[in-house]
C-alpha cells in the first residue's frame, strides 16, 4: 500500500472523481490558476480547464449559492471555501439553503454538493483565521458533516461525498496536509456516517476526530509506555453521528475521554458525552472527561496560541482522571 500525504489523498480523490464523471467540477477561490491555496488542486486547471475548475471572485455566498444552483441542475459541484472561517460569510447558503431545500420542497430539490473547507488553529493566523467551528455545522439536520483525520479516510470519504446526493460539508485540517498514511490503491470509498476504532485498547476509550486523532494517537503512545491501553474511536463523520463503535467500546473500557480541537462549550464533546450518558450510563465507572481548546479567541503570539490548543499531555492527564 502506498504511503501518501493527506494533501495527495484529497487531490487524488478529486482527480479520480473528475475523470470518472464529467458532471463533477470545482468552484472556489484560487482553485484554478493558483492551484489551490493549500496546493490541493495543483495541476487541475491545466488538465481539466476553466470550465471544470472555476476561479471565483472572493464572494463566499456566490460560491456556495452558485454551487447549490448548479447542483440543482444535476451537476456535482465541489465548492471550496478557502478556510472554514470564511464559511461564516456563506452561512446563509450552507445552513439555510443547502440544509433545507431538499426537505422544504418535499424532496423535489436534490443537491449533490460538496463544500470542501479547512479548519484548525496552530499556525499563528490570529483569531479570525484559526477556528474549529465544526460543531456549528453539525447542528443542522439536512447537512452531512465529515472531518477525516487520516490520509485513507480523507480519500475514501471525499470520494463518497462527491458521489452522495446530499450536501456534504467536508472539513479538512490545515496542519494535517503533510501527514502521511497508507491509502489503498484504486477506487477506495469510505461510507459517510461510520465511526471507526482506529486503535484497539481495553482500559479507556478516547473519542476524537480530525487533527485530534493524531494528538490522541501520540497520547496513546505515551499511555502505552505506562501500561495503559487506550482504544481510540474516530468519529470521521459528525452528522450523522455513529455512536455504535463508541458504545461498544465503552462497554469494554467503562471510561471515556473525548478530545476535540474546538471550544468545549456546546461542542462535539458535549454532544458525544450526552449521548453516552443517555445510552450507556450504567457502563461508566467514572465521569467523562473532555479535552478541548481553551475558551479564548486564538491569539497571534505563538506561545499564547499554543497554550490554548489541546496537546497529547492534556489527553494523558484526562485519561489518568478517569482511570
Amino acid at each position: 500500500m502506498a504511503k501518501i500525504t493527506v494533501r495527495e489523498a484529497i487531490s487524488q480523490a478529486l482527480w479520480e472523481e473528475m475523470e470518472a464523471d464529467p458532471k463533477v467540477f470545482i468552484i472556489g477561490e484560487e482553485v484554478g490558476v493558483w492551484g489551490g491555496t493549500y496546493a490541493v488542486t495543483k495541476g487541475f486547471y491545466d488538465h481539466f480547464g476553466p470550465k471544470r475548475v472555476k476561479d471565483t471572485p472572493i464572494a463566499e455566498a456566490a460560491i456556495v449559492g452558485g454551487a447549490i444552483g448548479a447542483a440543482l441542475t444535476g451537476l456535482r459541484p465541489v465548492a471550496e471555501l478557502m478556510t472554514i472561517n470564511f464559511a461564516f460569510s456563506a452561512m446563509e447558503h450552507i445552513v439555510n439553503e443547502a440544509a433545507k431545500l431538499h426537505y422544504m420542497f418535499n424532496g423535489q430539490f436534490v443537491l449533490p454538493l460538496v463544500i470542501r473547507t479547512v479548519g484548525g488553529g496552530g499556525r499563528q493566523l490570529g483569531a479570525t483565521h484559526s477556528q474549529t467551528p465544526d460543531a456549528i455545522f453539525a447542528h443542522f439536520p439536512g447537512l452531512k458533516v465529515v472531518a477525516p483525520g487520516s490520509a485513507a479516510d480523507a480519500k475514501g470519504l471525499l470520494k463518497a461525498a462527491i458521489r452522495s446526493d446530499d450536501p456534504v460539508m467536508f472539513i479538512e485540517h490545515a496542519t494535517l496536509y503533510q501527514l502521511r498514511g497508507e491509502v489503498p490503491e484504486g477506487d477506495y470509498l469510505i461510507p459517510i456516517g461510520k465511526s471507526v476504532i482506529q486503535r484497539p485498547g481495553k482500559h479507556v476509550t478516547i473519542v476524537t476526530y480530525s487533527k485530534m486523532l493524531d494528538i490522541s494517537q501520540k497520547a496513546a503512545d505515551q499511555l502505552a509506555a505506562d501500561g495503559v491501553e487506550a482504544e481510540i474511536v474516530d468519529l470521521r463523520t459528525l452528522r450523522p453521528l455513529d455512536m455504535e463503535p463508541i458504545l461498544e467500546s465503552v462497554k469494554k473500557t467503562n471510561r471515556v475521554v473525548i478530545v476535540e480541537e474546538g471550544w468545549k462549550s456546546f461542542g462535539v464533546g458535549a454532544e458525544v458525552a450526552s449521548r453516552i450518558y443517555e445510552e450507556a450510563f450504567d457502563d461508566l465507572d467514572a465521569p467523562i472527561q473532555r479535552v478541548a481548546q481553551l475558551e479564548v479567541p486564538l491569539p497571534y503570539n505563538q506561545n499564547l496560541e499554543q497554550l490554548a490548543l489541546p496537546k497529547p499531555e492534556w489527553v494523558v492527564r484526562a485519561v489518568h482522571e478517569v482511570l
Partner: protein
Amino acid sequence: MEKQDYLELYRQMVVIRRLEEKSAELYQQGKIGGFLHLYIGQEAVSTGLISTRRPEDRVITAYRDHGVAINCGIPAREVMAELLGKATGVAGGRGGSMHMADVNRNFWGGHAIVGAHLPIAAGLAIGDQYQETGGVTICMFGDGATNIGYFHEAINLSKVWHLPVLWVCENNLYGMGTAVNRASAVSSIQQKARGFGIPHSKVDGMDLIKVREAAQNAIDLVRGGNGPYFLEISTYRFRGHSMGDPERYRKPDEVQKWQENDPICIYGEYLVNTSMASRDELNEIETQAEEEIKEAVEFAEQSPEPAPDSLFDHIYVE
C-alpha cells in the same frame, strides 16, 4: 401570440387575484398559518414576464410567490392545498406560502430569505451554461433585495461569467415598510446594474403588454449569448407587505391612486379596445376563475394532512 393566448394571460391574472383574495379570507379564519404575502396589484409583472419563457427556462423568485406559481402552470388547487398545509400541496405541506416550487414545471421556488436566492439563480445559470441547455434563468426579487450583499455577489458573478440569467427587480416601492429612497442609495434600481456593466431597462409593471415586450426583448438578448440582463419592473402591492402589516408607512390616497391603475383592468381594456375580446368573454373568464378558486378551496380543505410518520421524510436523499 394568438387570441386564446392573450385570453389565457387574462385568465391567469384573474385566477391570481381571486386566489389571493380567498387566501386573505382563509388566513383571517385561521385556516392558513405562518406568513402570507399577497401578490394583488403585481399580477401583470409575473404574468407578462413568464409568458415569454420557454419550457427550458427556469423561474426562481422570492417569498411573494403564489402568482408566480400560477404563471408557471401549477394548478390553483395545489397552491391552495399548500397554503392549507395539506399533503396534496405543491410542496406536500412542508413549504407553505413562501416555499412553493415545482421542478417539473421548471419553477425553482419560492425563497424566503431576502436576496439569498440570487446566488442560487446564478448557480442554475451556471448549470445551464455548463450543460449547454440553451435555457435562461429568470430570477425575480424585490427592490429590498438589491441592498443586501447576496445581490451584489450574484450580479457580479453573473457578469464575470457571462451567465444566461435575466435579473428581474419587482420594484413595488417598499421593502416591507421602508420606502426605496430610505433604504437604497439610488432610487432608480436599474442604475445598480450599470455599475456591473450589465445592460438594463425599466418598464411599467402595471401594463402587461409593456412588461411582455420588455421581457421578450431582455430574454432574447440573454438567450442570444449576451450574458445577463437587468430588468426593473415598477409596480405596487395593493395590500400590506404581509397580513400583519399596519401600513403606517404609506397613505391611503397613495394606495388608492395606484389601485386606479389596476393591472387587470388595464389589460382588460386593452383586450376590449383591440377587439381581442368582448366584455362578455372577459366576464366569462372571471366567472370561470371564481369557480376554479372555489374548487381549489374545496380540494384543499378535503385533502389529507401530511401523515405524521412522514415527518422525517426528505431530510436526506440517502
